[in-house]
Every structure is written in C-alpha cells, then in structure tokens.
C-alpha cells in the first residue's frame, strides 16, 4: 500500500477524492489516500508546490493562472483530469429577490436569458458579486453571463469572498449576489438571506469546475502512482454519476472527518433538488454537478486555452502565447496513458471547438465511439482555440 496525501477544500465536489478512499477504489489500486482538509485555494496551490501534498483538488483556472505567471514562484503544476463539471449556483440577496419577483421573474432556476434580463432591470448601481477566487470558473461564468445580458464592464464588480464567509458577506451587504459551489448557496438560503437564481449549467452546460492537479516532476517521475491515483478517482466519479448513489455519497462526505455538515444539506447539491428560497420553494436541476458522464473528466486543451485567453486579456498579457502555454499544462497525454488501461473512452482529438454541442452527441473515439456531454453556452457562444483572438 502506498500512501498519497491529497489536499481538498470541503465542498460537495470533493466527493470523488473522498469516495475513492472510502469505497475502496484507491485500495483496489494499492493506494491509501490521506485526505488533508484545506482552508483556502491558495493553500492548495502552495502546499502542492512545496511538496506538502501529492495532489490537490483545485479550481480549473488556477493551474492556468499559475502557468501564466500570475502566482508565486512554485514548481510547475499540471492538471491531469477534471474532477467535476458544474455545481456553481448564482444567489441573490433578499432585496434583489424582492425586486425581481416584483417585476414578475419566476425564479424557475433554469433560464439564463430571462434571469439575466430581469437582473439587469432590477440592479441599481454597480452590482457587487462575490466569487470564491480571482481565478475560478465562477468568475468566468458570471463575467460571460452578465456581459451578454446588457451589463457593461463597469456595471458590476467581482469580489473575492471565501465561501464559508459568503453568507455573512450577503448579510452585511458587502455583496448583493454570489456565485458559489454547494453547500454554500444552500447555507445562504437556509439562513434566510438569499434566493437561488440560476445554476452555472444554465449559462454553460458543461463548465469544468475542479481538476486534479499534480506537480509535473512528481507526476512524470512516479508514473505508477500517478496512474493508480487517476484510475481510482475516475472509478469513484463513475460510481458517483449513478443517480442512485448520490444519497449515499452525501452521507459519506457529510461525515465529521470531511465536510462535517448535515447530510440533508450536502445532499441538495449532489442530487440537484434545491430549496431555492427562504419560503421553501423546490426546484430540480438534474445535471447540477457531473463527475464522469459524457467524458466529463477529459481535460480538453481547448478549455485551457479558453480560460487562458480570458485571463490574459484581463491581466494585460499576450493572449496567443498565454493560450499556448496553458494548453501544455492540461495533460491529455497522461490521461490517455493512465486511463486507457481502465477502459476510459478516449476522444480522437485533444482539442476541439468549445460550446458546439447543444445536446449529448455520439462521436468516434480511440476505440469505437463515445458520448460527449452537451456543452453549449446559453447565448450560442463558441470558442475556437486556433482562431485569432477577437478585438485585437
């Protein structure tokens, strides 16, 4: 048995790491996972860099930012697979909720066009929205959504708020809305502070959210351990995407050693059965978070390019070279090498046009065919990693 230390931030989407250890997927590969609970995203990055943990649960745009030099000087890090898609929830405070309802918005928790248009009408002054980290899918989702719903760049501010402090920030009026992963959106609702407006998947059907990140030197010099870890987590993700397992998963990850929260609260984010308002209204969002289905764990290089282009433009870096650099850190080669033996479906290419699939589609794979998840944006946006950068 080899022991690997894995850092995770206590969120619902840490489930693949916890399930890999608790249900024996790690043991099957000869691994014992020592799961280290972390308090901050920057801590995951720094501990991984210092070698204090072997792998980390990390926001997908973080290794991109690190590759672009927008972080401390640490050893090179690579994302070897996605751990989850989706799971982000956009939440408005009670005051905004009241104004939105007053204008007839139905809080259907589904339609990004209707919710965006209503929010644009309801907003007074500069809208302040809390996100968990400057480099997060949350930040990119909100920017994309608001800019396509009539908000100019100076009509809103994104403010970094640590998720455990999000509800307090809403209560004190520091932010009027938040975009956050579960269970923190539900916590804000249960405290009577907010209503859920939209799941992240209503803006972008398959937004990659968390990735498994390793130091490049260790990933390459310890291929057996890297492969064993990837396969254990991949199988945990497959188990998690059986809808019948989500309730059990909630009980496991809610335990005191992990999220230490009531299972009922944790279950909402995993099953997509959300209580969206203080009044107790329920809404279903079946695909709120996906761990495995439709090739969800494949780390498309084109997604590295998509985040890199946006981050580069926001920080005054050359986008083309940023995209090229970031793509080298999404290790589709390691994914193919280590998950092929486990029977993972492998797409023929490692980059593609993003946002092209309005519905799930069967495509040719390395062997036979595979189903790829729908990945459309609400506004029909598409991204070509090879195309010239717009607006330059």
């Amino acid at each position, binding site marked *: 048995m080899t022991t690997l230390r894995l850092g995770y931030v206590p969120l619902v989407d840490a489930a693949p790491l916890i399930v890999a250890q608790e249900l024996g997927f790690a043991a099957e590969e000869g691994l014992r996972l020592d799961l280290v609970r*972390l*308090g*901050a*995203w*920057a*801590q995951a990055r*720094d*501990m991984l*860099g*210092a070698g*204090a943990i072997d792998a980390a649960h990390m926001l997908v745009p973080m290794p991109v930012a690190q590759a672009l030099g*927008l*972080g*401390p*000087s*640490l050893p090179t890090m690579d994302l070897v697979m996605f751990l989850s898609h989706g799971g982000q929830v956009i939440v408005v405070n009670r005051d905004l909720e009241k104004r939105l309802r007053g204008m007839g918005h139905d809080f259907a928790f589904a339609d990004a066009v209707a919710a965006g248009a209503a929010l644009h009408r309801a907003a007074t002054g500069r809208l302040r929205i809390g996100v*968990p*980290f*400057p480099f997060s899918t949350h930040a990119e989702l909100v920017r994309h959504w608001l800019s396509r719903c009539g908000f100019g760049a100076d009509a809103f501010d994104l*403010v*970094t*708020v*640590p*998720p*455990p*402090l999000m509800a*307090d*920030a809403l209560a*004190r009026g*520091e932010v009027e809305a938040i975009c956050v992963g579960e269970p923190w959106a539900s916590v804000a609702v249960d405290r009577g502070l907010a209503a859920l407006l939209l799941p992240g998947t209503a803006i972008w059907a398959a937004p990659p959210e968390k990735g498994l990140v390793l130091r490049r030197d260790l990933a390459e010099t310890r291929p057996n351990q890297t492969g064993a870890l990837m396969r254990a987590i991949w199988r945990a993700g497959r188990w998690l995407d059986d809808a019948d397992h989500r309730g059990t998963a909630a009980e496991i990850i809610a335990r005191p050693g992990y999220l230490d929260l009531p299972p009922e609260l944790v279950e909402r984010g995993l099953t997509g059965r959300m209580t969206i308002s203080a009044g107790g209204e329920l809404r279903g969002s079946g695909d709120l978070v996906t761990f495995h289905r439709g090739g969800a764990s494949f780390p498309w290089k084109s997604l590295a390019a998509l985040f890199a282009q946006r981050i580069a433009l926001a*920080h005054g870096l050359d986008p083309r070279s940023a995209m090229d650099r970031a793509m080298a850190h999404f290790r589709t080669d390691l994914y193919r090498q280590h998950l092929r033996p486990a029977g993972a479906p492998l797409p023929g290419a490692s980059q593609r046009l993003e946002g092209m699939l309005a519905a799930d589609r069967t495509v040719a794979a390395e062997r036979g065919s595979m189903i790829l998840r729908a990945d459309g944006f609400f506004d029909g946006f598409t991204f070509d990693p090879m195309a010239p950068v717009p607006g330059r």
Partner: protein
Amino acid sequence: MSKRLLILVVEPDPDRAQPIADGLQQAGGHEVHIIAEQSGLARQVADLRPDLVLIDMANPSRDVLEELALASGPTERPVAMFVDRSDEDLTRRAIEAGISAYVVDGLRPERIKPILDAAITRFHIFQQMRAELAATRAALEERKIIDRAKAVLMKARGLDEEAAYGLLRKTAMDQGKRLGDVAQQLVMAAGLLGR
C-alpha cells in the same frame, strides 16, 4: 537606518496573534498591526497600506489577499505582492511552517528575510503547542476509555479494579496491541452486547 516597516498580522485568535506581533517587534522594531476581524479585509488592508502582510496559510481570507496582490496595477501603489520570488528556500520554509506572506513591491529581500524568519519561529512554536495540547487531550480521552473498560470487566467478571487493569494489560501485551485500543474494542463490544 532604514525606515520602520508596517507589518499586518491577520489572525482572529489573539493568543496566537500577540506572540507573533511581539516577536516581530523584537526582531526589528517594526510597527505591527493585528487584524482580527475578517470582514472587509480588503478594505482594511488597502486603508493601512502595509509593507508586509502575514497570515496563516489555511486562513480562508488568504484568497482575498490573492485578489489584492493581483489588483494592484502599475500606476497605483501595489498593496501587496507575492512573497519574494528569488528565495525558494525561504518560501518553502514558510509554507512548511504554515505561514503566508504578502510583500509590497520593491521591498528588498534582505529586509524581508529576518521578519519572515522571526514569524516562522513563532508559528512553529504555536504549532508545537497545538500538537502538545492535542496529545494531552488524546491521553485524557484514552484514560477515560480505559476506566470504562475496567468497569465493564469488573462488572462482567467480578474483578476488583487492579485485577481488571491487569487483565487488560495482559490482553494488550499478548495481542501486541495498545492498551487504549484493546479498551476501545472492549467498550464497543460491551455496547453492542447491551452491557
């Protein structure tokens, strides 16, 4: 004589923050300011314009400082920058001690090093204290379990306290297990059997 630096320590626990602040003052006579209240941290840091911010690596509010470090544009006075990039050993030691430092742009490495060294020492002392406290608690917990196991044996086998303890010890030695583990198993089994 170089000017005194303004150092911020972001730490909600006063028992922890004060020794760190004292240590930093002794190390170089710098002005040290403690921020305990995490709300509005970005605004507090921006108002105070510190030269250096120290924070527990696991403090969720670190991610707020990350944003500040990025937000400082070329024209404004940078609020904070990531810890000096040139000294990898110092960075690694700070991470191992569980401390993060955000340093104003342009502050010379030879000025940062003694401050960080002092902070790392204090963080280590605190971590040690915390580990010792945890060990003491665990020992207390174990003694309670052993007392309960003794009580189970005394009742079930009609032994006196000394004999019950002797039996527990002998069982542990025979099985090559820790006394606390044997006691724990016994108490759990007794619970299952409704004794």
